[in-house]
Every structure is written in structure tokens, then in C-alpha cells.
């Protein structure tokens, strides 16, 4: 049994040959062929018209059963239609599941195009920042999320880190926004509620500030009595050493408390509240003076470009210089040298303190600016450092939009570079 188009071809040829034969019997074979061909054409025309109207009315009753070519065309057509419907359903289900799961995410997610226009947003995005997937499609995201900090972040095109902003929905809440570029210039904006973390940080800062403040007055009393005891001639010699040690430890604690207070002041007050010209050359000179004439200290060489000056807070820059210099001196043997330089470079202005001391192992570099972090926890603590110096340096620099770069090689030396941006540069100091 022939199938499909072969049967159809055989049938049509048979019909045409039969027509010719019948015509030949009567002496007109061509007329017979013509009549047979016309009949075939008429039948095909009828079927084409019927199929077209069936497609229109979706009533395929005529084509449902049978073995003819048209019935077969219909069955193929129906088969494909069913299959595509099944695919469609499957994709729709998948899409719904993806949508449901993105909507269930506690973090807000917004898909943006190259011009930062909203394409899709999940439900949390609506709850956190009020961006609605349908209502805001095609709207620039910073037209709705208008916090100046966020706009600055978006126009900065540097998405390595995120930005913390106040929630536009709840005044007391804080959000962390981060843009992740992907694909062909598309962006995914992730928004996370960090109110809890923010409150914790605030509590920690307040606790440190309050605790250091509360510790200061008892310490003053203790130091005062220890000072007078040390000078009291009536005290026996066996007490001299303990009192001297208590005194030096009390002084150490006073330094720690003072530095903690300085640190919490840097953290809690607004950035660079005073923007006066800073005479860096003079500050470096006065910092160097502290070490002049002290025995067993490394030699300090200074290279200063007096043409370079920046705007900022003079006392904070002074503390940056003092802390970096005292670190360098403490970690450098007396027979080598510490170099201090202040000059302009391609990034802005740079303050470099380099030494040829013990150096720092690479794995310690990222943690160096943490409070009380020590590279060598077993090392003697009598070198005068309390472990807050670099934390203070870092905070003071952040307030001046500056960055701290640390390069170090073990047993060769370290280099601390404070880079101040071009915007802080004010040229020659009058």
C-alpha cells in the first residue's frame, strides 16, 4: 500500500491515463486527457477552498477522517499545532515558576537596559523602593529612585561596589543597592534591606564612643594617684618597680582611650566638615621634629614639593602623617632609613612614607587597617603602638576622599601611599 504523496501521485496519474484511454476508445485521446485534467483541477480547487474556509472557521469536520492527501495534510497540521501548544504551555509554566520564585525573593531585583530603563522588577522591588514592574516599564530607574547618592553611583559607571541609601518608602530604613552588568549592556539592580545591620553598626559605634568616654575619668584618677605615689619618697624600694609598671600601663590605656575617642569622632561626624587649605610641608616638618635627636631611631629623609597643597582638615592630616611616621620608625632598625615624600602625580597628590624595615607578609595586608590588628601577636607590645594608628589613618583619609595604598615585601620594607584626588588639590600655598 502506497502512502501520502506517493498514493496521491499514483491516483492523479491513474485518473489522467484513464481519461486518455477512454478518449482514445472514442477517437479523441487529447480531449479525454483534457477532461480528466479539468476534473482533477476542479476537485483540487474545491478542496483548497474548503481547507481555507476550515482554517478560518476552525471546523475541520471534513478533513478529520479518511486517507486522502488533504486529510493527511490536516493531521500533520493538527499534530504540529498540538505540539507547539504543549511547548507554549510548558514555557508558560516555567516562566510562571521563575516569576513566582523571583517574587518570593526577599531582595529587590530590577532588570535594566543599557539606558538604565526598567524592564522587569520583582515584587520586593516594589515593596522596597516602589518600582512597579508594569507601571514603570521604560522609566529610567533614577527617575523613581532619586536619592542623589544613587544617581551619583549610577552616573559613575563603577559598579565594583554598591551604595547605601535611605529607603524612599520608610524614612528610618536603609537599603544597599548594587548594579550587576550582564549580557549585552544589560544591568541587574539588586536592592537589599540593611536596616538591621545599619542599626547594629550604629549601636556598636555609640557603644565604643560611650565606653571610651566613661573609661576616661577613672583612668585620670588612677594615673593621678600613681604619679604622686611614684614621687612619694616614703614609698619603699620594693614598690618602685610595680608602681612604675602600673604607671606605664595606665599611660598606655590613656593612649588607647584617646585614640578610640579620636576614631569614633572620625566615624561619627560628617566627612571633612572643615575644608581649609592644609600646609602639608609644615605638618611634615613638625612631625619630623619629634624624632630629631632621639637615639636609636632610623634616619628620616624628606622630599617635599611645597607647590602642592590640598584642602581639608589640618589636624586630621597631621594625625595621618604622625601615625604613618611613628609606625615606620617603630618597625625600622636604627641603622636604616625612613623616607617621606609629598608630591603631585598623575592621580592627584600623593603622600608616601616608605621604610626599609621588617615588612609585612602579603596575607596580613588586607586586615592591616582593622582596629587592634597585629601582624605578630606575639611581638612585644612595649613598642608604644596600641593598634589603632592605621584605623585612624584610614578613616581620616576616607573623610578626605583619599585612599591608602600599601606595598610591602618581607624583610625589604614597606611603603604607605596616601592618594588625594585631583579635586582636593589647590596648588601653591600663600
Amino acid at each position, binding site marked *: 500500500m502506497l502512502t501520502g504523496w506517493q498514493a496521491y501521485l499514483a491516483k492523479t496519474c491513474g485518473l489522467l491515463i484513464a481519461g486518455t484511454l477512454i478518449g482514445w476508445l472514442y477517437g479523441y485521446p487529447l480531449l479525454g486527457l483534457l477532461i480528466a485534467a479539468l476534473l482533477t483541477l476542479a476537485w483540487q480547487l474545491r478542496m483548497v477552498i474548503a481547507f481555507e474556509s476550515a482554517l478560518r472557521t476552525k471546523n475541520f469536520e471534513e478533513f478529520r477522517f479518511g486517507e486522502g492527501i488533504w486529510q493527511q495534510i490536516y493531521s500533520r497540521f493538527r499534530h504540529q499545532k498540538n505540539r507547539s501548544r504543549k511547548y507554549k504551555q510548558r514555557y508558560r509554566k516555567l516562566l510562571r515558576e521563575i516569576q513566582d520564585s523571583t517574587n518570593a525573593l526577599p531582595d529587590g531585583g530590577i532588570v535594566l537596559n543599557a539606558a538604565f530603563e526598567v524592564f522587569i522588577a520583582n515584587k520586593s522591588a516594589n515593596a522596597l523602593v516602589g518600582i512597579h514592574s508594569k507601571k514603570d516599564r521604560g*522609566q529610567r530607574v*533614577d*527617575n523613581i529612585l*532619586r*536619592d542623589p547618592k544613587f544617581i551619583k553611583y549610577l552616573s559613575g559607571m563603577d559598579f565594583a561596589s554598591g551604595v547605601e541609601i*535611605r529607603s524612599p518608602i520608610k*524614612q528610618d530604613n536603609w537599603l544597599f543597592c548594587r548594579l550587576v552588568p550582564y549580557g549585552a549592556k544589560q544591568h541587574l539592580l539588586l536592592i537589599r534591606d540593611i536596616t538591621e545591620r545599619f542599626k547594629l553598626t550604629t549601636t556598636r559605634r555609640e557603644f565604643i564612643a560611650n565606653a571610651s568616654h566613661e573609661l576616661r575619668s577613672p583612668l585620670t584618677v588612677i594615673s593621678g594617684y600613681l604619679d604622686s605615689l611614684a614621687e612619694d619618697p616614703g614609698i619603699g624600694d620594693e614598690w618602685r618597680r610595680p608602681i612604675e609598671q602600673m604607671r606605664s600601663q595606665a599611660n598606655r590605656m590613656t593612649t588607647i582611650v584617646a585614640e578610640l575617642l579620636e576614631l569614633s569622632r572620625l566615624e561619627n*561626624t*560628617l566627612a571633612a*566638615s572643615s575644608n581649609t587649605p592644609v600646609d602639608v610641608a609644615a605638618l611634615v616638618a613638625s612631625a619630623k621634629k619629634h624624632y630629631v635627636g632621639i637615639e636609636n631611631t632610623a634616619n628620616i629623609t624628606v622630599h617635599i614639593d611645597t607647590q602642592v597643597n590640598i584642602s581639608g582638615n589640618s589636624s586630621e592630616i597631621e594625625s595621618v602623617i604622625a601615625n604613618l611616621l611613628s609606625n615606620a620608625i617603630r618597625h625600622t632598625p636604627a641603622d636604616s632609613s625612613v623616607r617621606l615624600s609629598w608630591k603631585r602625580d598623575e592621580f592627584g597628590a600623593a603622600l608616601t612614607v616608605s621604610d626599609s624595615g621588617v615588612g609585612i607578609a602579603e596575607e596580613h595586608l588586607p586586615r592591616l587597617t582593622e582596629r587592634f590588628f597585629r601582624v605578630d601577636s606575639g611581638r612585644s607590645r612595649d613598642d608604644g603602638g596600641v593598634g589603632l594608628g592605621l584605623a585612624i589613618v584610614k578613616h581620616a583619609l576616607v573623610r578626605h576622599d583619599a585612599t591608602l595604598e600599601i606595598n610591602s615585601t618581607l624583610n625589604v620594607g614597606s611603603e604607605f601611599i596616601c592618594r588625594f584626588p585631583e579635586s582636593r588639590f589647590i596648588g601653591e600655598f600663600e
Partner: protein
Amino acid sequence: MHMTDITDHISRRFNDDLEDLRNSVLKMGGLVESQLSKAISAIVSGDSELGLKVANDDYKVNDMEVTIDEECSRILATRAPAAGDLRLIVAIIKTITDLERIGDEAEKIGFLASKLARMDRPADSYRELKNLGNHVLQMVRDAMNAFARLDVDASMNVVREDEHVDDEYDAITRQGITFMMEDPRSIKRVMNVTWAARALERIGDHAKNICEYTIYMVEGRDVRHTAIADVRKETS
């Protein structure tokens, strides 16, 4: 569908110009919102430094107003916009004036915050002022959102909301009078609180104005009169 290259080019440039203008108005709105939000926190948390910072940063708002104003004049002069485009420009010129005023009021609140920070704080640490402030801040945000989304319904809601702000302002005034009668020593402080409340109430009015411009921009001239008449009826 297919325009000649030149007209397509020109109209696209024009569209970009209008879009940039709209974006910069919303950017200015964002700056004003953040100024207001900082001013309110300064008063509520008694942060004198933050208050002064708000007052010192007001020049940024003023600068933006001038820039946008110039850009509007430039578009009016070079493009001679008509119909919807013209309404957009007119609405923007009016909107930025109100935004600038809101900035001025926020500056005032910042100053008052730094003054109040130096005085005794009441036990409720200005809860009423905080509520009124957050209410007004939300109104400004909603007004700018409605401007961004061209949302007439949301604008109408803000216009209606202004009534509640007026009520809250009255309540603060009455409470202040009671305080001053009970204890004349509190007069100086309560006067400052009343000034801050007054500034917040004015900000509510400016937010309402911005919403009216948005309605005008979207609905057009004819609908504007009836719409605003309706709005007036509802608020009075």
C-alpha cells in the same frame, strides 16, 4: 512610518532634549527630597552639624534650578514646541520654582535644627514634628513619582493629602500654645518648633502645586480647568 532622515534626526534630538530635561527635574527632585529628609533627621535627632550641612548645601538646589531654567528657555527659543511638548516645558518651569522653594524651606528647617539642638529637648523628642515631616516628605516623593509616571490619580491623592498636613500643623500650633502658657521659659524653643512646622506645612503646599502642574501637563488645557476646579472643590 518612514520619515526622511533629517526630520527623524531632528525630532529624535528634540525628544532626547525633552527627556534629558525631564530627567534633570527628577534629579533636582531627588536632591530636594534628600535635603528635606536630612533636615527632618537633624531636628529629630538634635544633630546640629547635619542641620548646618543642609543649610549650606542649599546652593546645589539653586544651581540646578538656574540650569534647568536656562535649558527650558533654550528649548522654547530654538524648538518652538507646541501642544504636549509646550505643556511639559511650562509645567517644568513652574515645578522647579516650587522645588527650589521646598529647598529653601528645608534650609530654614536645617538652621532651626541647629538652633534647637542647643536647647533642652522635650521628652517626646519632637514626635509630632517627625510625623508631620515624614508625612510631608512622603507627599513630595509621591508628587515627584506622579510627575515621573505622568500619573493623574496619584497627583490627585497628593492634593487631597494636603488637607491632613494642614490639620497636623494646626495641632502642633495648639500644642505649642499650651506649652507656652504653662511654662513661659519654653517660649523660645516652642517658637522655633512652630517655625519648623510652618516650613513643613508650606512644603506640603508646594508639593500640592507640583501635582497640579502634573495634572495640567497630562490632561491638557481644557481638562486642566475642570480638573483643578474639581480638586479645589475637594480640598476646600
